[in-house]
């Protein structure tokens, strides 16, 4: 085998290893979801304020019910991109609101299916899932790249 052939083989191998990573990153978008029957929308800023704990309600006064996704990596990425704070600080803020009665205690879905189910069952429910898990049972109000 010549040096050129070896180099080509090595490049192909590296490309094969790296491509799925890029493909995965490209597809790993996050969707902020609400119940399919929910007709109201939220701006990105309003979504950030709700998950940051700065706001506990929808613009019309309906209490917001946060549904946390049990996927730790997804949650960390979502908080970093939308709320722009560490996961521990965001959770601590939710707990503070619940312990003082200012906001509802967050609910947690272990899987995307559970998050969607809780969003549909909870008045004012708002959650986040991988965009690839999106289906007609819920409505996407924001896509996070």
């Amino acid at each position: 085998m010549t040096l050129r052939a070896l180099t080509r083989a090595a490049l192909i191998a590296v490309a094969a290893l790296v491509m799925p990573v890029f493909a995965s990153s490209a597809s790993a978008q996050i969707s902020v979801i609400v119940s399919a029957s929910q007709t109201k929308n939220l701006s990105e800023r309003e979504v950030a304020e709700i998950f940051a704990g700065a706001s506990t309600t929808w613009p019309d006064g309906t209490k917001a019910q946060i549904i946390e996704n049990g996927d730790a990596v997804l949650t960390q990425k979502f908080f970093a991109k939308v709320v722009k704070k560490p996961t521990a600080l965001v959770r601590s803020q939710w707990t503070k609101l619940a312990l003082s009665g200012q906001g509802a205690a967050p609910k947690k879905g272990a899987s995307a299916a559970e998050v969607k189910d809780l969003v549909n069952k909870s008045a004012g429910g708002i959650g986040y899932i991988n965009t690839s898990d999106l289906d007609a049972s819920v409505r996407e109000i924001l896509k996070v790249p």
Partner: protein
Amino acid sequence: MLARRARMAVVALALVPAVAGAQDALQVYGYFSTRLEKVFQLPVANGTAVERAASPKEFSQPFFNVMMQHQFDPRFKAFINLNGSGAENIDVRNLWGEWTPSNAFNVRVGKVYRKFGLYNEILDAVPTYYGIEAPEAFDADHLLISRTTTAMVYGVVRAGDGRLSYSVSTDNGEGRDITGTLPIGADVNYNFGRGSYTVGLSGYTSGGATNSDREVGDGSPKTGVLPWMARDSFTVINAYSEARVGAFTLQAEWAQADHKAQRDADAVVQVVNGAGINAAQRARFLVNANGPVNASNVNLNGDHTIRTWYVRAGYSKETMRGEVGPYIQWDYYSNPETISSKRFGGDAEAGEADDGAFGKGTAGVLYRPVPQVAFKVDGSFHQYKFLGRTVRYPEIRIDLSYAFGL
């Protein structure tokens, strides 16, 4: 009596879903906590000399805070907050119902923590904030005002890049009603930067002359009026700010309470005779400090001003083994009218100082191995003027809490 009332409150809230047709289940959550505090080398007077004394450690019996809330309609919500260390020792901290016709207008009625500064509403959320002790403005030994109110209107409106919040509250007043007072509390704050920054102003007026909820000898008041006042008309103003940027939390708050007060001569005689006051306090309470201790020698003018402020900073670092959060704090409190004896309604820290003022620096760390468990350890040094000298003494605290249902 309290335990019975607490049980009735729990049963009432539990019955609400059945009556109203529940949308969501009743949420029950809270935390258990325990704390150890130890002061070292406490300055004590021996004539005009300052000596150091050992102080016993204080280990608080594990206590619980149980919260229940129920959103039984999109517009109606109920909340209960119970605190205690046993069935016979249950304190109903909050018990309120809330009506929310819109974001701009909410009505909360019951036993309600008023919106006042950064901490009054969240003082029972100890596991969530940096530090173990509340800022001095909210220390139970020397409250600026009562923590709770009975009716509060509040709301929030969008304003520019952020959200403008307001609240107005009223209640039955601080102590026994003297002149038909109408106390008013208010708060306005602006939150912006996607929830990262808050600046605000809180205020309170007693709305006329009132007095304390405690008699001399019954301990520290739960209100802003000292037990030896016959009447006290006062106002409080409080400014605060908070920045939560990335992993950092920075807080600063300043408050001043202006009291136009008249002392009760007989109560002051009890204080001077039994509370072990210092020379500055004696000179304040008596017309002639070297004269006889009787009602005719009591200086009835009890006007005084209380000032307090603090700055706090914390940082959250997520590691493979949980969250680590170092923090530093500086508190200042000044109340020239108070005394050291808690039993007589004073404050052990400010009351020991010659001028009623002290500073307290604190450094500590919060460790959360899992979100439900918070372990905090910190150390403070207290600094004040004592017998004409600046003295300091250290204190350490350890706090462990476990949250459930969250």
